[in-house]
């Protein structure tokens, strides 16, 4: 069983995802995480069908209405339906997650595997650079980038991506170094394969599974950072229904109209908790010692 599910065994790594999924569903917490994420994705896809109102249309005669009465989660200070805004906000959250992943994953993978395989000066310089990036809390560095780029959702995504590749690169490097001296790599080299070819064809596929897992683990942080930027007015700009920004505008009314900040906050919390639970489950699932015991 362990041999089949081991993420690194090449013939097995097509079967592995299925086994991991089965394992995750067996634990209530990671099953919950998966369910929330499935819900998020479905909500984002079917947003127009689920939303009861237009998320941007203001109704100034109907502001700060408490939940109920045709508005599931009430209305905000401009009379917009909070539930509908949350539903559309799921699209923004998913966009952030998706874009950050497709930027960070490849960057981290390329830099990490190259540094790990090539070694030498390139490795030293690259690892120095990751060191420097890692000596900041991610939010602070993202703040700096956004401040320089100018506040907007796109810039927030760029800033988050710029600050979250180093841990991925570190991981990919460590993995690459374990494969560097393997016999099949030596065989490829003897056949005259170029370094680029070896990295792309032989090393990267081997590092991919653990990089994907690490990305999942980082998503909770990405979501919190994005929400934090939105809250500080540096991410998505009004009137976009971004959850962090919704909390920021709702803050002025929070003492009388609690629903303005409560529901977006719960949404952020659930998604980031879901990623954390899922990540925790993945860690267990891929730890062979754990697999044997259960």
């Amino acid at each position, binding site marked *: 069983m362990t041999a089949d599910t081991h993420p690194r065994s090449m013939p097995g790594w097509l079967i592995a995802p299925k086994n991991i999924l089965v394992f995750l569903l067996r634990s209530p917490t990671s099953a919950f995480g998966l369910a929330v994420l499935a819900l998020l994705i479905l909500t984002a896809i079917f947003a127009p069908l689920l939303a009861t109102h237009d998320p941007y249309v203001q109704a100034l005669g109907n502001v700060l209405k408490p939940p109920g009465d045709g508005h599931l989660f009430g209305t905000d200070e401009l009379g917009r339906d909070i539930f509908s805004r949350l539903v559309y906000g799921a699209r923004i959250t998913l966009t952030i997650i998706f874009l950050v992943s497709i930027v960070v994953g490849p960057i981290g993978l390329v830099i990490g595997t190259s540094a790990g395989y090539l070694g030498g000066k390139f490795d030293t310089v690259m690892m120095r650079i990751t060191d*420097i990036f890692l000596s900041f*809390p991610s939010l602070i560095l993202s703040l700096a980038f956004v401040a*320089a780029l100018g506040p907007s959702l796109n810039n927030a995504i760029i800033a988050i991506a710029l600050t979250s590749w180093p841990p991925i690169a570190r991981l990919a490097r460590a993995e690459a170094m374990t494969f560097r001296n393997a016999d099949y790599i030596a065989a490829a080299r003897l056949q005259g394969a170029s370094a680029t070819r070896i990295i792309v064809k032989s090393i990267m596929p081997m590092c991919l599974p653990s990089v994907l897992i690490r990305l999942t683990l980082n998503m909770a942080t990405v979501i*919190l950072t994005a929400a934090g930027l939105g809250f*500080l*007015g540096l991410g998505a700009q009004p009137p976009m229904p971004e959850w962090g920004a919704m909390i920021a505008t709702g803050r002025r009314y929070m*003492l009388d109209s609690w629903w303005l900040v409560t529901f977006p906050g719960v949404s952020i919390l659930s998604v980031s908790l879901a990623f954390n639970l899922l990540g925790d489950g993945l860690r267990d699932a891929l730890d062979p010692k754990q697999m044997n015991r259960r």
Partner: protein
Amino acid sequence: MSLPRLRLAGAAGQLGSIAVTLLGLLMLTFFIGRLMPADPVRAIVGEDATRETYEQVYTSLGLDRPLYEQFVYYLGDVLTGDFGTSIRTGQPVIEDILHVMPATIELATFAIFIGATLGVSMGVLAAVNKDRWPDHVVRVLSLFGHSMPIFWTGMIALIVFYAHLGLVGGSGRMDQFYIGLVDDRTGFLLVDSLLAGEMDVFWSALNHLILPAALLGYSSSAYITRMTRSFMLDQLGQEYVTTARVKGLSRHQTIWLHAFGNIRVQLVTIIALAYGSLLEGAVLIETVFAWPGFGQYLTSNLIIGDMNAVMTCVLIVGVIFIGLNLLSDILYRIFDPRTR
């Protein structure tokens, strides 16, 4: 074996690597400040300045020189302690920061005490009861702390504990009518109020401090809990733990008299790192609680686009991080007899 010489070489190597990291840090802040689209001249002269004024400021900032020359000037300025002037206050940035820093340090220190106490005890509890219900409860609790958007939890806590229950003070470091009552000697309000003998101010300050500190502490406890648990599990599998049990010590005594001593060193290291990460949460929580500290200074300058102030703040966070790393290293040497 020339152990002392080895250790000296290690220390020198470490200092060298710190110097390189610091230089990299400076490069990073410099390039973020200069290369990105934000226009430092516009931030100073404003939108409707004449072309002449613009050009004048442009040259006076040295922006017409090549980039590497600019960096050398920047390096020289930083090394002489000149970080530029804040647009908002007109004061040297570094003075501004030194002025607001104590408020943040007070908050963060209080928070780390809460976080470390909570995290260490929960981590030990989880390790000792591995795979039983306390372990699961602790895991969910700490993942929860790790997942909450702290700016939001801050607001909810304000609504509940301040607005509805009236248990704690609201925003700011103390109640409005106490402001200005105590001289600013150390900048740490708890200390200043005690020095001045103003107990009312002291209690008010404590009352305002407890909620943001507890939230920050809880969020940082997630990491501390997880690490404590794994360190403790490592130790509980060691033979000396069995030895202690064979001698007749109870599980409880074994854990606290033997195993805990062995994770103390590692705990100090991760608590130092957690202290650094607190600064991140502090930026957000200070905004929510109108806490006049470093985080609020940073965010208010972000919004007006004063890159001088922002980059100095970022640089200082980086330096604090490196300093904490170094500190944890030193503490490691002090605590572990094997490195003495």
